[in-house]
């Protein structure tokens, strides 16, 4: 029933990922539009709360996670110099994972939610998702177990780490919270998942992707082994502590608060170490970003990663948090890592890997260019609207401006966000169309080749 074809898991996970980025971002665009026209699609399924959580869960666990698994199903066996342990199991996991995501999607639209940021799916979906992730992790660990290369390349450390950390944070965030009575403890458990889904899954797999893509795309050696070590071990040590900064100035004990602020700032160490390593590797190759779209996506991703990780630590400080907390700023920041940094590296991974799998170049270079520019410009418009809005909003609240008045003040910024968001959304259709064309043409070409061979034989 499930195909055993070489690289089929990787390809199929990518196809599913791109399907979900369209659905997930439709939900996002609907959320943004509802802030302009609150009456839009105001029925029992598509209320603001349902749509917003569906957007968040879909872009993270459907689009980004599937794109990650897709690239791991290619990069891990390549680095291990072996085949995927079981392509069949990879394809089965894909079907299962998609059924679970569909269940979660409909559960959210029906109003079932756990009210945990980045962990909104109800418990009966969480359990199934954990099994699906477990299947993927088992398959990939088995693959590494059969490796022909003695050394583990940096990307493998990150991939294998992430495949353990995601189930860990998923369990801690989703399950005990059901039985803990009090709100503050639940909040802390919830934010353990909330921030580690970003830090020990989205970030670490994304960084692993960049470590793989940069040397391959530029043909240059990786800059420094020592920096790789510092970056990996520092993030693995400090990231788990980031959750409490989301409850900054809230009803948590001072020591927990500090235990959240300090590691947030200490994160500058792994982030800068990793970036120094990336940009050291880029030395002499910057001009290639003009012609190579995958490389440009990767490098733009590293730049957005830098900015996300300059904002993040500062936001953790109590004084800064007191201004921007609960404002539109946070939403702008929350999009920079998952979209600006790691969706970009995943786009690069798709553009690098897909041609290698199907055996022909991407169908349209101009569509790739359009994808890049719409994504980048759209994101900048989107993000700057929200950042300005957040600062204005934050200070207006401190000044004591009546709440409703501050809502009206946000009108132009919310519109700017929707315009930027529309551009980001449109960009993904270039990706989907380009992938469809490439795969279809590759199939056609293979068939023709086979016919020619048969004729000449």
């Amino acid at each position: 029933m499930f195909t055993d074809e070489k690289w089929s898991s990787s390809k199929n996970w990518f196809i599913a990922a791109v399907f979900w980025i369209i659905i997930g971002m439709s939900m996002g665009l609907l959320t943004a539009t509802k802030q302009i026209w609150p009456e839009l699609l105001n029925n029992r399924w598509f209320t603001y709360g349902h749509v917003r959580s569906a957007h968040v869960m879909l872009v993270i666990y459907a689009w980004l996670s599937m794109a990650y698994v897709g690239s791991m199903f290619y990069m891990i066996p390549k680095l291990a110099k072996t085949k995927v342990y079981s392509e069949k199991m990879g394809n089965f996991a894909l079907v299962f994972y998609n059924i679970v995501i569909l269940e979660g999607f409909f559960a959210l639209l029906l109003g079932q939610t756990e009210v945990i940021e980045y962990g909104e799916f109800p418990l009966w979906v969480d359990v199934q998702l954990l099994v699906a992730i477990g299947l993927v992790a088992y398959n990939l660990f088995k693959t590494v177990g059969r490796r022909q290369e003695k050394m583990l390349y940096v990307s493998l450390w990150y991939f294998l780490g992430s495949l353990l950390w995601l189930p860990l944070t998923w369990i801690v965030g989703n399950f005990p919270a059901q039985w803990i009575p009090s709100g503050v403890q639940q909040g802390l458990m919830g934010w353990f998942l909330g921030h580690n889904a970003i830090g020990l899954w989205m970030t670490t797999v994304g960084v692993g992707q960049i470590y793989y893509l940069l040397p391959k795309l530029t043909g240059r050696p990786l800059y420094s082994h020592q920096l790789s070590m510092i970056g990996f071990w520092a993030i693995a040590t400090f990231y788990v502590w980031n959750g409490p900064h989301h409850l900054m100035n809230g009803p948590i004990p001072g020591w927990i608060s500090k235990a959240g602020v300090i590691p947030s700032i200490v994160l500058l160490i792994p982030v800068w170490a990793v970036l120094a390593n990336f940009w050291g590797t880029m030395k002499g190759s910057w001009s290639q970003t003009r012609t190579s779209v995958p490389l440009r996506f990767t490098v733009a991703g590293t730049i957005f990663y830098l900015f996300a990780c300059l904002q993040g630590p500062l936001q953790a400080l109590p004084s800064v948090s007191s201004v921007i907390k609960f404002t539109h700023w946070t939403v702008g920041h929350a999009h920079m890592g998952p979209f600006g940094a790691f969706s970009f590296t995943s786009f690069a991974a798709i553009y690098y890997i897909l041609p290698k799998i199907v055996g022909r170049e991407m169908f349209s270079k101009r569509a790739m260019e359009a994808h890049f520019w719409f994504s980048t410009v759209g994101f900048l418009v989107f993000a700057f609207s929200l950042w300005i809005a957040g600062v204005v909003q934050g200070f207006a609240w401190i000044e004591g401006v009546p709440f409703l008045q501050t809502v009206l003040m946000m009108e132009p910024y919310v519109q700017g966000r929707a315009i930027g968001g529309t551009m980001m959304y449109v960009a993904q259709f270039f990706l989907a169309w380009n992938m469809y064309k490439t795969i279809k043409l590759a199939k056609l070409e293979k068939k023709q080749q086979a016919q020619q061979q048969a004729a000449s034989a």
Partner: protein
Amino acid sequence: MKKEYQQHDSKEADIVSDIKIEHNRVPKLLVAVFYVVAIWAIGYAIFMPGKLAVEPAAAPQDNKGELIFEGTCLSCHATGAAPDLSGVTDRMPEEDIKNVIKKGRNTMPAIGHLYTEKEIELVYEYLKDYR
């Protein structure tokens, strides 16, 4: 041909999975940043409270009427969902206004059970100056 990784100083590159890995030293600026961050972290852990110090509000509750009015009444009366209330004390007698607050009227719900007589009085006092 694989070297042990401890030899950081060696400029020779390793090759892992066909990817060349160099052994450049960590840039000095970065080492300085690491130290600054580490020292800051220790200092913060020892000397800072980890929260924003907030002074308690100076004269509490002297604008309670305004707070109730903005938090409750304006949710409808400032959005166009319900009539504008500026100068309402000129148009309606005191008893009627208090009765509407307590018992509701047309689409406006009764909210009397949420507030004490004193609080409703404060809202009425605020309404007198609301134009």
